[in-house]
């Protein structure tokens, strides 16, 4: 593991921690964006250009904006006077530790099952495009239809609210 990897890991973890520990909700959202950026840079560090740039485009360009808009349009934007820890933080910690342990166990055991790759796999953007349009076209279209349905559903919900208030 290189120095750059540790630097990016520190950035991502610091962003993630700040996102849960800061008091102001907008600060949390911005800290979450730092964590997204750290993840994107980790992808780029692994030579996965498409994944890295898609991460920036989708998460920083769209999801982060969505999050801050949602915070501003709801009542959550006020800074809480008492601490940010909820009453059930111990149970939450337990669940998180259990999930982390399961994932870690799965990852560590998969190393033994799968053969160790000798060469670094290379996936150009063109290859990813060909795979999406060829082998995985059905999955891609299903996701597309699902997203369209979600969007139409959101519009319908908004329309109903407007009609009811008249």
């Amino acid at each position, binding site marked *: 593991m290189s120095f750059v990897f540790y630097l990016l890991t520190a950035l991502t973890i610091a962003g993630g921690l700040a996102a849960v520990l800061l008091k102001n909700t*907008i600060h949390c959202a911005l800290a979450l964006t730092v964590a997204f950026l750290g993840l994107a840079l980790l992808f780029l560090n692994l030579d996965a*250009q498409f994944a890295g740039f898609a991460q*920036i485009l989708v998460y*920083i*360009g*769209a999801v982060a904006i969505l999050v801050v*808009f949602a915070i501003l349009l709801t009542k959550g934007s006020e800074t809480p006077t008492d601490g940010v820890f909820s009453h059930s933080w111990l149970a939450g910690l337990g669940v998180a530790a259990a999930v982390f342990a399961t994932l870690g166990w799965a990852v560590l055991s998969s190393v033994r099952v799968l053969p160790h790759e000798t060469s670094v796999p290379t996936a150009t953007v063109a290859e990813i495009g060909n795979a999406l349009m060829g082998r995985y076209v059905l999955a891609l279209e299903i996701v597309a239809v699902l997203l369209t349905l979600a969007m139409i559903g959101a519009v319908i919900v908004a329309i109903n609210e407007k009609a009811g208030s008249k």
Partner: protein
Amino acid sequence: MFENLFDHLDQIFVLLKQVLVGVLPAAWQPVASVVLCVVVIIGLFPALFALAVLLERKGLGRIQNRLGPNRVGPFGILQPIADGVKSLTKEDIVPISADWIVHFLAPVVLVVAVFMGFAVLPMGRNMVLVDMDAGLLFYFAIGASTELAIFMAGWSSRNKYSLLGAMRAVAQMISYEVPLLMSSVTVVMMTGSLSLTKIVAAQNHYTYGLPHWFIFTPWGFAGFFMYAIATTAETNRSPFDLPEGESELVAGYHTEYSGFKFALFFLGEYLAMFSISGMGATLFLGGWTAPLSILTWVPSWIWFFSKLMLSIFVFIWLRGTLPRLRQDQLMNFAWKFILPLCLLNLVVAGIWRFMGDGWLRWVVCSAILILAYLVMGRWGMRRQHIAPRSYRYAE
């Protein structure tokens, strides 16, 4: 002899860089090469920014029947220096209720993100900082992160004008990013590559002395116009400058910024204009290629920067000519007119690709686009009664 000279002139910056980097030990050369390019980009574009601001003030003055700046130096050409000194020496005021960390970070994030976009633009033959496989994707990914900087600026100022301006700016930028990407996707469909150098290379052919630029095809023409409209909105320029509408919002998201931080926002806006114009030139206007085959001896970087400055001229011209839109007009225009046309343009680009060479595809593709433009234009205007405006109380 002359051809050799012009070849050298074409590559003068590349050769200069090789000479300068060559004096260093071999281990430092890759780093030094990158650093040198970055320094040139960071120096060149702010210089161009000074020139563009002067051009804009002079040009707008000419359009509005006044002289424009004419006090500093002959014909006011030293005005940018005076502006620079002024903004550097002004007091930096941070509102007492402002969130000072985010308030400080917002202009920095904006300018850094905008500068990164220049990294992938091919500014001449062999003149690109990083020749990335996914250059176009990188450019749009970086461009999308400027929205967050604008939001940070508006929110951290704790000022309702700032916040409203930022909300407007972000809503507008998200809406127009869709047509921006959609119109660029047609070029990717044609060249089959996201690499900007390959996109330029695909346009670097000539038939009867005329170039194969994408703007000279039906889908490219439509795509270029939608790209140009989307860029005007994306850079918050008039007629889409609602986020900064002075009559309603003081100055929009940078109301509470003064001194050098305000100058950074100003710089960021112009740099975004440069980079997005450069991207438009690369995608549709052939990048650094010459407009006629007999002009290919002119150095490639001259063509790139000529196209860039021509776009800036059009931006200034539009600002001096068109009135500002209303918020609902802005949104309706993006979602009900530009976006359907962009989607149709994708289909047309597909038809163009699979009809093969020949005159028939020109007729079919042009007919579809013109028909769609007319029908959608009429349909959108069907309830509008365009007549001389009547004033209820002023007559």
